[in-house]
């Protein structure tokens, strides 16, 4: 009994660690104390996204964070995103989709369209 409790706790801890390792953090990265060149951001090896102001902005993992800090870079974290799929409430339901499509297609079917300027070739 004692042994199985310990196992359950360790499994839970393992799952928590696994989840943490897969978590992505929204981050901005700055050259910090060790930037040697103007091209310091060209080989960061992180999942970058565009930034309207041209800042170095990325989704990073814990492993990325440790690596970047070891390089002497400065990292600011803004938010953590647990690993997982898109929120299902953001996916169009089949019912809503069919209703939208039927409306669009009925408009298309209801109108013959103009006689083309140049007749089709076949």
């Amino acid at each position, binding site marked *: 009994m004692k042994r199985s409790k310990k196992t359950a706790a360790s499994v839970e801890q393992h799952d928590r660690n696994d989840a943490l390792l897969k978590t992505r953090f929204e981050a901005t990265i700055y050259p910090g104390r060790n930037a040697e060149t103007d091209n310091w951001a060209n080989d960061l090896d992180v999942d970058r996204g565009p930034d309207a102001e041209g800042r170095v902005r990325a989704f990073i993992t814990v492993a990325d964070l440790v690596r970047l800090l070891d390089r002497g870079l400065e990292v600011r974290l803004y938010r953590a995103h647990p690993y997982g*799929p898109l929120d299902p409430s953001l996916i169009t339901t089949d019912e809503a989709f069919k209703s939208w499509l039927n409306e669009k297609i009925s408009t298309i079917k209801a109108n013959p369209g103009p006689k083309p300027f140049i007749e089709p070739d076949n």
Partner: protein
Amino acid sequence: MYRSIEQLNAVIDSLVDSAPELCTRIFLNNSVQNRQIRALRLRAGGGTNRRGILIVGGMHARELMNPDAIVELATDLVAAYKSSNGLAYGGASWSSTDVRIMMETLDIWMLPCANPDGRNRVMNGDKLWRMNLRDNAGTTCDGVDPNRNCDFMWRVVGPTTVCDPCSTTQGFVGSLPFSEPEANNIHLLCDTHRIDVFCDVHSFSGFVLFPWGHAPTQTTQPLPNFTTLLMGFCRPLDPPSHQEFMSTSDKTKYETVATRVKNKISAVRGENYVLKTIFQVYGGPTTGTTSDYVYSRHIANPALRKTFAFAFETGPDLGFGRTLESFQPANPDPIKDDTKAGLVELINQSVCAIEFIGTTILGQSVEPISAARDELLEPTELGRGWIEFVDNIQVELLAIVLSDRTLTERAMSLLPRVQELAAQREKTTVTDKDVESGIEFLEALQSRTKTPEVSDGISTVISHLKDASGQTVEAILQKLAKSDSPKLY
């Protein structure tokens, strides 16, 4: 809300079923996980060798909005054409004539969801997934970035381009150029269909982008260019100071069209998109992209047609802590309207009235006319004003010409003479008869236009034409390049 892959496919299938005279579906290479990848062609009426535009979405899986926007745009265009209505998104609108000319003079190709495996992964596994689902041999790591896998400066590494399949960058270049079907489909479409304009739609930040991505763009030194640079070695750009050449004419065209697209997006609800080169997005080399590949084709192989290649980064940057929401907003509808407006304007900008009559109807090249325009009018601001004037009135005048058989025949008889004069623009002089025929044609157009500004503009053209007898096209255009063009809107 975002549509599943099955729903996106169902939109394409329903359009083909309900309007087969306008919509053609083709199946491209299946995805890595063997999902079907559909492309859709919209075209009304006939004519061969039409100008073509290719719009691509969903190359990066987590950028969810764009496949939805593209299938909605397809339905909107078909519905607007069939009902002879115009099209409007917020404050941006196009008349029924605009829609008709787009649908009847162009082949509009759409590849709404280029990377269905990735979209499936986002919806069912990892919301931040960006690549395809390639099982990379010898590793436990999946995925190749299809927008780093094209045969252009492939394996030249940079801020978002890496050779390690296990990197968290999500920018792995793949095992060979075009090893990935999702990227190869772009190559396939460009090889098998006439594509004059291309747009790869990404998110986010509100940018309208154009080449180059691997290096800053310059307009003064044609050589050395990318064909002489080292690639394929997983090394950074060499030399790092390289700047890639683009002709002034092409740069002007990119900036002109991108500005018109940006203005139309702004008209929807006031969003202020910014023009940039692809290189400027990350401030470092971005290689193996679809847009650079598509534009570079005519330079790597001069036998190929030039394609002007754009990219959008749709949607605003919502700020730190809201990056995921910038990629996947809970309500993407306003952003999709911006995107659709930008794309319709890009389609509109792809129309060329002279080329439609010359190439599609008469089967002749209009290259001498384009060359005279590019070389004599484009270099000056006043000259560019004349190009813009023609661009702004061409859709209305083309519709007038095409709707009247007599006028169509008159245009068809005039165009070969204009081509001859343009081809020999330094030698052959315009005759009294040329002037007379030209004025007669313009007056016929003027009598049919219902737009006062267009009528006034035609009067200005006629006044210039009256002085043209005895002059070469070179001399006439040189003079125009120093004259004010009519102001329209």
